[in-house]
């Protein structure tokens, strides 16, 4: 830095948030804020049956990339890096995601990486891009997430554990299937079947209401894909523009009749756990000063994110531990937050976290969650951002939090401000 630049940064440091604290400080606008100028997702469709059952994950990703380029109008060559979170893709998806960016219209100068932090991969991708922008490594980037559970979900997704890993109890716990450990956690923490079913039914009811009112239209980018009719075997092209896992008429009573999936006396079943789905989502990030220079419309800003570790067998408590850390980093309290998007991996863990944190139910997932429309693993973290910003804007609210539990025992959370 030259002398003059050093002096300038010294003087500009005098304009920090200073005494302002809490919501007042994070809602202030500064040129170096990391802002979101576009957040879109594909519809989420049922694994193996839904609209994207015959579409490769990379194609979903290319589709959402194209939609982001179209909607934002950003010059593709100004995007310097793309991070894509994905969980099941062999090799992390590194090869096909780079190819997907090229086919979507990004020039060769746009770099692409893939990453995997299990169910928070999409959020981690966004946080990585935000950090890269903050540190000056890049100016414009995309954080994205994608998962084709139709084609890539299955036993092959986890490598066999070595004797070494098996020899250590906590280490061996990392491979306990999510359903089994959530069942244990529900028992351990006393989360009743009734409370899970009622939470799950509400997720469905909220999603149905939101879908009817067209509240997802703004965040979903319709995609034309090839689809084979399972009855006739006929291949046709369809436009997928709505989440197809959302079901009408679900009540706590109707869910109460379903047999538990993981233990005879268990409480978890297909109706109160997240759906296996396909989908992709992408979030365009840059500094506020860059957005203003490029004439990008600002949806809101990324404030901060947190990542924490918890016991592998209690991975469901992740949001409970991660959210307070993110709130503290942002300097706000839980009451300053208007909307919480907390991933519903299982009703049991989500309802426990919400109760334990003391968050009012009406602030949590106002348009429903993964139980109603699905949890394409790597996509979810990026999907939540589009869902959150459209709802904050519609209801004229300001501050939102996205969070999820992470397999093998972690939690992530991020704080967002809508503008």
């Amino acid at each position, binding site marked *: 830095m030259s002398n003059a630049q050093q002096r300038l940064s010294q003087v500009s*440091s*005098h304009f920090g948030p*200073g*005494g302002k604290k809490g919501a007042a400080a994070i809602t202030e606008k500064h040129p170096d804020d990391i802002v979101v100028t576009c957040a879109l997702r594909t519809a989420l469709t049922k694994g193996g049956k839904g609209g994207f059952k015959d579409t490769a994950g990379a194609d979903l990703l290319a589709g959402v990339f194209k939609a982001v380029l179209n909607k934002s109008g950003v010059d593709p060559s100004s995007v310097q890096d793309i991070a894509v979170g994905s969980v099941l893709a062999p090799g992390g998806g590194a090869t096909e995601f780079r190819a997907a960016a090229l086919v979507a219209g990004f020039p060769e100068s746009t770099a692409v990486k893939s990453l995997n932090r299990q169910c928070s991969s999409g959020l981690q991708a966004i946080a990585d891009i935000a950090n890269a922008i903050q540190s000056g490594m890049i100016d414009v980037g995309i954080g994205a997430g994608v998962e084709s559970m139709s084609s890539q979900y299955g036993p092959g997704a986890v490598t066999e554990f070595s004797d070494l890993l098996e020899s250590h109890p906590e280490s061996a716990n990392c491979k306990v299937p999510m359903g089994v450990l959530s069942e244990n956690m529900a028992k351990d923490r006393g989360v009743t079947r009734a409370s899970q079913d009622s939470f799950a039914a509400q997720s469905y009811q909220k999603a149905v209401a939101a879908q009817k009112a067209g509240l997802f239209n703004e965040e979903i980018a319709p995609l034309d894909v090839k689809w084979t009719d399972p009855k006739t075997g006929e291949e046709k092209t369809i436009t997928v523009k709505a989440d197809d896992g959302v079901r009408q008429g679900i009540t706590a009573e109707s869910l109460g009749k379903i047999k538990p999936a993981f233990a005879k006396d268990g409480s978890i079943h297909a109706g109160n756990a997240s759906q296996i789905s396909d989908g992709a989502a992408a979030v365009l990030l840059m500094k506020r000063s860059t957005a203003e220079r490029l004439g990008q419309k600002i949806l809101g800003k990324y404030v901060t994110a947190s990542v924490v570790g918890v016991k592998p067998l209690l991975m469901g408590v992740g949001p409970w531990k991660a959210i307070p850390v993110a709130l503290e980093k942002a300097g706000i309290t839980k009451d300053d937050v208007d909307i919480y998007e907390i991933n519903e991996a299982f009703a049991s863990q989500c309802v426990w976290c919400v109760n334990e944190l003391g968050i009012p139910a009406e602030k949590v997932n106002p348009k429903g969650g993964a139980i109603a429309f699905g949890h394409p693993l790597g996509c979810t973290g990026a999907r939540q951002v589009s869902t959150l910003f459209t709802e904050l804007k519609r209801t004229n609210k300001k501050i939102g939090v996205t969070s999820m539990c992470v397999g093998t025992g972690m939690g992530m959370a991020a704080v967002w401000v809508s503008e």
Partner: protein
Amino acid sequence: MLHYRTQGYNGCAVKYSPFFDNRLAVASSSNFGLVGNGRLHILELTANGIQPLKWFTTQDSLYDLAWSEIHENQVLAASGDGSIKLFDCTANDFPISNWKEHAREVFSVSWNPVAKDRFCSSSWDGTVRIWSPHRPQSLLTLPTHSCTYSASFCPHSPDIISCVTSDSYVRVFDLRTPASASNHLVTQIPIHAGPPAPAIPGQPGGPAPPAEALTHDWNKYRPTVLATAGVDRAIRTFDIRAPQQGPLSTMLGHEYAVRKLAWSPHLSNVLLSASYDMTCRVWSDRSDVAGGDMDMMRAGPVVGAELGRMGRHTEFVTGVDWCLFGSEGWCASVGWDENLYVWDVRATMS
């Protein structure tokens, strides 16, 4: 209100002469002190308004100045190139002395008002240095390890020196203590700590996060009291006898960082502030009505009162000083708008 324009130079500091009731000096810089020359203006209040007596142009920006306490024609200037220059109003063009030891911008200079053969400087290089006008090298270096925006000798004791830094601390050094590992440091007051301030509508309450401290000043009547202010917009007073007890009083109201504070030479409870919010404000810390400094059982800081406000500046106000002579209340302010105003604070009070 009297006015003078420091054409082409953005004001950074202003000080009244301790010898002449009609003389003052302004330290200024071209291009807002970012790059380019500095200029020290020596000005006189005359029947025809403010007239330039002399000016000295320097290679680099000038950020602060201090009048000599032993020689009526001499002024120190703090330069962006790390040097301190002593100018004599009877000489032309060049400084009569030049000290260059600081590695970065010198942001404040202060002359010892008691032991008048000493002055000190503070710099962004994280040190305070003590000098004698008669010696080519500094007498002592006090490390702060943090960008030091302001250093000042206590007006009540020749050996006590204080400074505020970007790490949000007031440091008090006593030069009578042995130069042990603590480098004469005797007290360190966390500006941001202390009991929560009572909330004022529209203002933040509760404990504050650390914020860069940009300015401070010793009270002229209460030997253990000083005031600090900076990036967090709050002005606080502290008693150095109770460093962990939090502020004696807080004064909230500035909308951006406070750049300069000055206690009144006439009234023990009145101080003047200059801020990036383009205003100068007059405050009472309410020590006159709130039980003085002796109430050690107080529940929390007293909330000071804003007595008046001057809003003529159209850019950051960077310097204020009180006139020591004549009727109480006259002061001068400078800012990045190239304007020097000489005004009476009583005219701003309702």
